[in-house]
């Protein structure tokens, strides 16, 4: 590795590797070596070298992922794309940019905002997560409610396949010719190929934005409001909910102006032409009032808007102040079932003795229950996992899915059986094997390692690493 990349681009000391053992999830997996390529060619060389020694390879961006997607579950080589961070080309006229995978999400927007453009997917980690990771996980964010997730904003990809071959899929303009390979690779969690160059679609900033904070006495009223806003046919650009407990934790830290004595707040953005924004805001205010909102505040200017959003965006930092650790879950339900889902989460929390906070993308039914626990207490951790499993099961029972934006990774691979049958797996496995036949890329992810889905097991490097 050192001869290919130079010693400055390879880490192999245990104390260095330790840093790459974690990501944003509760999982663990230590690589044997970490490398930092600068070019597609180097990525290809590394993969070929790893293949020669039959060592698994896992790609990693900023390591902010929440499902263990960028962890070396089977050990091996970790390719960190941090140094492939160039914006190669910006075509303002045709609203496209070509970027390397290590470019930070928000930096794409920074590079094009002078022209009134931006990159729409905005995960909460936008300031640090990379576009390569976004593509691998098909990342979402608050504003994907109106604008779609990562896959809706990717035109073409350059990939390095597990045999080191370099290919391109998708087309800069128009649609796929033949099968939509780009659509397959986005969200494949690094299990089919490594992404080395991305052509993104840029969106045009809306003429007008209005940010509203709807304040409710109870979370039931707030969730009823979400159901009714959705049913009214309005698609806000974002519709986020913070429950009373969470908003107090956030308010104590960020001072965003969330009323500490409320039961829940909805943070909403409406965007578009001025005339449409005014009308949408009026309907939202009316619906919220009918759902017993105490008050609907409208941000007067950009400063007030930023402050309201600051609370949402820094929520996880705030939570870090009140418990040693938190486990952010990610499940999806049909939006019409939101009140019921929140009730179920509360009950499950009670059963396991946790307080479960809720701060989530209410508008698209993407729940993020947060379980606060102490990782030093093994019993608590086990219970947190069990509670999480029950919540995800409840989501599926309500007609939902396992994950809305965090990915399956090694967090939920054993739960896949809740949603998919053996024949579904058989086909997914054939697709997997068509591109990654030896499971040399990111082994131990997405597919259940055990037969069926009886137990969640958090495996470490010693016990994991083989594909079924």
């Amino acid at each position, binding site marked *: 590795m050192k001869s290919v990349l130079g010693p400055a681009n390879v880490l192999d000391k245990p104390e260095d590797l330790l840093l790459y053992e974690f990501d944003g999830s509760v999982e663990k997996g230590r690589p044997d070596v970490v490398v930092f390529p600068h070019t597609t060619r180097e990525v290809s060389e590394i993969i070929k070298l790893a293949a020669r020694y039959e060592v698994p390879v896992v790609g990693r961006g900023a390591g902010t992922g929440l499902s263990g997607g960028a962890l070396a579950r089977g050990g091996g080589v970790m390719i960190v794309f941090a140094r492939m961070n160039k914006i190669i080309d910006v075509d303002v006229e045709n609203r496209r940019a070509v970027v390397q995978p290590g470019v930070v999400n928000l930096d794409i927007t920074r590079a094009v905002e002078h022209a009134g453009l931006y990159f729409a997917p905005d995960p909460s980690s936008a300031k640090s997560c990379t576009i390569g990771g976004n593509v691998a996980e098909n990342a979402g964010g608050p504003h994907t409610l109106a604008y779609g997730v990562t*896959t809706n904003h990717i035109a073409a990809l350059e990939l390095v396949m597990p045999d080191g071959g370099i290919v391109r899929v998708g087309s800069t*303009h128009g649609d*796929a010719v033949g*099968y939509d390979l780009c659509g397959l690779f986005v969200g494949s969690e690094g299990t089919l190929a490594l992404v080395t160059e991305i052509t993104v679609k840029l969106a045009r900033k809306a003429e007008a934005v209005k940010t509203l904070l709807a304040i409710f006495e109870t979370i039931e009223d707030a969730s009823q409001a979400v159901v009714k806003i959705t*049913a009214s046919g309005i698609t806000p650009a974002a519709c986020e909910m913070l429950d009373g407990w969470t908003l107090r934790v956030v308010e104590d830290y960020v001072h965003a102006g969330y009323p500490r004595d409320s039961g829940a707040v909805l943070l909403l953005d409406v965007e578009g*032409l001025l005339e449409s924004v005014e009308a949408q805001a009026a309907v939202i205010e009316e619906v919220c009032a009918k759902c017993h909102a105490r008050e609907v505040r409208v941000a007067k200017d950009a400063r007030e808007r930023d402050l309201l959003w600051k609370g949402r965006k820094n929520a996880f930092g705030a939570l870090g102040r009140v418990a040693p650790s938190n486990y952010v879950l990610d499940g999806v339900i049909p939006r019409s079932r939101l009140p019921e889902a929140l009730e179920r989460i509360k009950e499950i929390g009670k059963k396991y003795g946790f307080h479960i906070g809720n701060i989530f993308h209410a508008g698209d*039914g993407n729940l993020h229950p947060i379980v606060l626990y102490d990782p030093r207490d093994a019993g608590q951790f086990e219970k947190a996992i069990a509670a999480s499993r029950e919540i995800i099961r409840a989501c599926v029972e309500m007609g939902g899915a396992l*994950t809305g934006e965090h990915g399956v990774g090694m967090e939920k691979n054993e739960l*896949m059986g809740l949603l998919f049958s053996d024949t579904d797996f058989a*086909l997914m496995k054939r697709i997997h094997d068509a591109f990654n036949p030896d499971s040399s890329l990111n082994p131990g992810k997405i597919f259940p390692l055990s037969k069926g889905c009886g137990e969640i097991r958090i495996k470490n490097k010693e016990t994991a690493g083989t594909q079924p």
Partner: protein
Amino acid sequence: MTVVSDVAIRLAGAIGAKRVVAVPEELTTFAVDGITPSVIARPASPEEAAEVVRFAVAEKLAVLPLGSRSKCELGMSPERYDIAMDMTAMREIAHYDPGDLTLSVDAGMPLRELEIYLKEKGQFLPLAVPCFESTTAGGVVASGIDSALRLQYGTVRDFLIGAEFVDGTGRLCRSGGRVVKNVTGYDLHKLLIGSLGTLGVITRVNFRTFPLPATFGGHLAGFMTGQEALRHANILENAGLPLANMEVLNPSVVGMIRAILQNAGEPFPAELEQEQWYVYASFEGNEAVVKRIARELQNIARETIAKCNRVLEITEDEALGGMLRESFEWLRWASPANLICRLALPEVKPTTLTDLAQSAESSLLKVALLVKAAGIVYFAVFADREDEESNLSLEKIASSVDSIARAAHGYSTILHAPLAVKKVAGTARIPANDRGLQQRVKLAFDPSDVFAPGRIVGGI
């Protein structure tokens, strides 16, 4: 006993005689590119569809799933085609949650029926595709055909949230789900878009639905030259106004539209009497939004010195919008033999239009040009008879169009051509390494090549 009825009898044994048709007259209506199947299977459930596929695998026969058959000429001719799988008997709405704006329907459900059903709840699917009256929900996915509402709502890829299908091993599979945001497992349902029946039998599709706009409007701007029209279109595209559709019509397209509307006794904008270039824009929203966009479009047309600058009456807009949704349909039947190329380009320049016109000049054939939103161009060439000479001309033109598209950093595909031309020209070219990946996808879905092999570009 003939071979034909032999297959039919065995298939009837597998799924019941009621589901099997082998009447010669009916078989010919299922012909694709001149190839007539031996038997038609009309499954009433996903299990029956799976049974047909398993039967075909065991008997080494090729299956082609079909909806209303309105666009089955898309793609290459199948290398083998024994069993037509007619999906139109499966047409139930499996699930509709208006409060969640999600819908799950059987593949054979016609879009027209769906439209009526959704309208009751004030919702719709933004799939303004040609042959709208007959197209099925499964067919619109499998054909990957353009929708006239792309500019505002994107393509079917942007709101297909899940699918159920029978794979090439004859098993029922599912991908995605019924929620609007979902990253659980591979997005296999995206691969079904434009797959032309080569990956699986789509039995059910799940969509995100959209609220019907409160009102809508249309604007027409007329110009003497294509260059002026393109300039106007370019300004519209960059004006930051949300448009539902925008198309540039060349004079011969204008003439064709007028003739069809006139024959049908439908209202049409009087300006279409003038065979010049037009830019049509449609838009929707609440009353205030529609008024504002109409006003701004008129202002822009004043600046671009449009010869015609008019906000259309609702009835005119509906008629013209409907014609543009159906352009593929009337372009392909406009003459005994013709060629329709679809170009996808980063930007459409005036030189592209002149290059395209020139490509057909020496053949003396009439051409039509329609510049759709998002860099998509329909270029049609009409021959008044189909013979070797006209086919040769069309082949040459197809090849020039392909070069023009490449030179403009785009690509071109053939949507319609006489069979002989399609066989020579192919429907599109894809890069060699991409083709290898596509083949792997096909093999994974359909290991024994039971689904109409050869239909996808590159002969996959």
